[in-house]
């Protein structure tokens, strides 16, 4: 009896310990993000105060007003243009990567063709190469082609960064869908194309949504390549725009934090909107017997 009580107590302790540890890890992970968000709503002086002031004493939207050029105190940073550039580049590259990913993923999952294994391995190896290692050759080629500081230049880079991953992810989803469903649809009167759109595509939708979110976030957040390939408001994206807040002798932390919040919010909203698909998509393989 005592032994049972003791073992229950030790179990409870263990659980409490694990919960505390998880909480601590979560705090460590969340603090920088939280600090950025808090700092977006307070003046520079408070951000730099020592000892640190955690809770904003005078919460304000001034930082946001400033970077959008509203109010008296203005910062000459075209956040609106950066935002539009980011949006156009991320959405276009995601759409293209998804189209290629869907076609490629389907082909890898459903067709037998010469060199299939080699090409797939090649795509995966390409994923293993850090993007920044390609920055110099990409810069030289892009400058020869005259697409430095254009949206097109970045879109091509992001499509090629995202395609291997979207193909890999979508291939996995199509593999999970029994081939007999497409065959049943063809016997039922569909062309192969109709069978794809009416049967296989709706079933792989979760996976395609997951791949889309990943591709979008990669393009939306990417900094290293964008900082090399963009120059002006015609193509600079939000993460690159953050650098505009650093001058030779000063850094406008408050403005930078406000802009960081502007970068984070759309990504959060998107993830929130598709979270159902995302979870279904990422656990799809696990739930099928």
């Amino acid at each position, binding site marked *: 009896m005592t032994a049972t009580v003791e073992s229950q107590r030790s179990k409870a302790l263990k659980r409490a310990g694990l919960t505390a540890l998880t909480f601590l890890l979560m705090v460590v992970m969340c603090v920088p993000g939280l600090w950025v968000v808090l700092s977006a709503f307070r003046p520079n002086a408070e951000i730099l105060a020592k000892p640190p002031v955690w809770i904003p004493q005078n919460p304000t939207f001034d930082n946001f007003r400033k970077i959008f050029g509203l109010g008296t105190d203005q910062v000459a940073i075209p956040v609106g243009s950066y935002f539009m550039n980011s949006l156009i580049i991320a959405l276009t590259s995601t759409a293209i990567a998804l189209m290629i990913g869907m076609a490629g993923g389907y082909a890898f999952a459903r067709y037998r063709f010469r060199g299939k294994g080699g090409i797939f391995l090649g795509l995966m190896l390409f994923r293993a190469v850090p993007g920044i290692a390609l920055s110099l050759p990409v810069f030289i080629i892009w400058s020869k082609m005259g697409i430095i500081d254009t949206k097109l230049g970045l879109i091509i880079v992001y499509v090629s960064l995202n395609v291997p991953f979207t193909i890999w992810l979508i291939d996995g989803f199509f593999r999970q869908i*029994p081939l007999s469903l497409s065959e049943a649809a063809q016997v039922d009167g569909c062309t192969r194309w109709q069978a794809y759109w009416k049967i296989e595509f709706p079933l792989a939708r979760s996976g395609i949504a997951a791949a889309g979110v990943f591709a979008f976030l990669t393009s939306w957040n990417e900094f290293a390549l964008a900082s090399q390939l963009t120059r002006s408001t015609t193509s600079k994206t939000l993460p690159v725009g953050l650098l505009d807040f650093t001058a030779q002798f000063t850094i406008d932390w408050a403005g930078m934090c406000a802009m960081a919040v502007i970068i984070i919010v759309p990504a959060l909203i998107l993830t929130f909107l598709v979270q159902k698909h995302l979870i279904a998509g990422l656990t799809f393989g696990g739930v099928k017997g």
Partner: protein
Amino acid sequence: MAEITLDKVVKKYGGLDVVHGIDLQIAHEEFVVLVGPSGCGKSTTLRMIAGLEDISGGLVKIGDRVVNDLPPRKRNISMVFQNYALYPHMNVRENLGFGLKIAGEATASIVKRVDEAAEILGLTPLLDRTPAELSGGQRQRVAMGRAIVRRPDVFLFDEPLSNLDAKLRGQMRAEIKKLHQKVRTTVVYVTHDQVEAMTLADRIVVMRDGRIEQVGSPMDVFNHPRTTFVATFIGSPPMNLLPATISGGAVRLADGTAVPIPDRLSDRVHEGRRVTLGIRPDDISPVGHGLSQDGPGAEVEMEVELAEPLGMESLIYTRLAGQEVQAKLYGPRLVQPGERLSFRMALDRAHLFDAETGRSVRED
């Protein structure tokens, strides 16, 4: 009219021949079962009829049309798949009506025909459920409903019952038979289960290694197997096969036991020919406990190794000429292992196969 003709149909995967030029004629409204062990080419043959596999050689005709190069949708066939292949994102009504919708049928007509098919198969209360909310048997019925709703020329069934438990399989087997009697369509049905083949088929096609081993009515194939393969594949428990030699006007088993040559086969064998004696468990029983006591017979004494009582009959494992032999005991009598009994073989139902080719000596 939808006869199906297979004319020297070949299937190759790369250099590997899977189906070796089979010929088969299936009549209008006939129920034909392709049966055989895994890898015998039966499913591949069915899929070639469906248009889901390319045909490497020969001709497939449905009615008067050669369909070799027609896609599945132009063959006017329906197919029930082993895993049912119901569309998971559609409810039962949508699953049933999908083919009609694709064909551009008017909504009112779709509703009417779906309701009719649902009525035939008892699916009416399930029409708004999704496949995930159905039991195995219900899914099976939806798959059949999807097949009949389009009123195709030909039904194809690819091992449709193999995912069901034994009891449900029996029920669904009866439903398929009833369905065929109602809708009278040409059916090609693939299974590895000889019981399904026997109970459903108008004609059985036994396949092995990409070739047709025998075609015939279930009773014809059961009573007159052309090869030892068919003899052991059709019938449960399988036919006992005992190596023997024709010697001194009798069939002499390996241990010297002499069994008279069955009368109807006596002119088919000659002295010294090496043969295999085939006799079904039903035709070898303890004296007085067999199916028939008439006709020519031979008695041998054997020791019971194991007895499995099955109610009105028992399956007895015994040994003859060094080989395990299964026998049937009919009527209530308990048998103990170690008991020595006199068994009677019904010779008019015994078979002789050539020892080399495995072919029935009747075929010579």
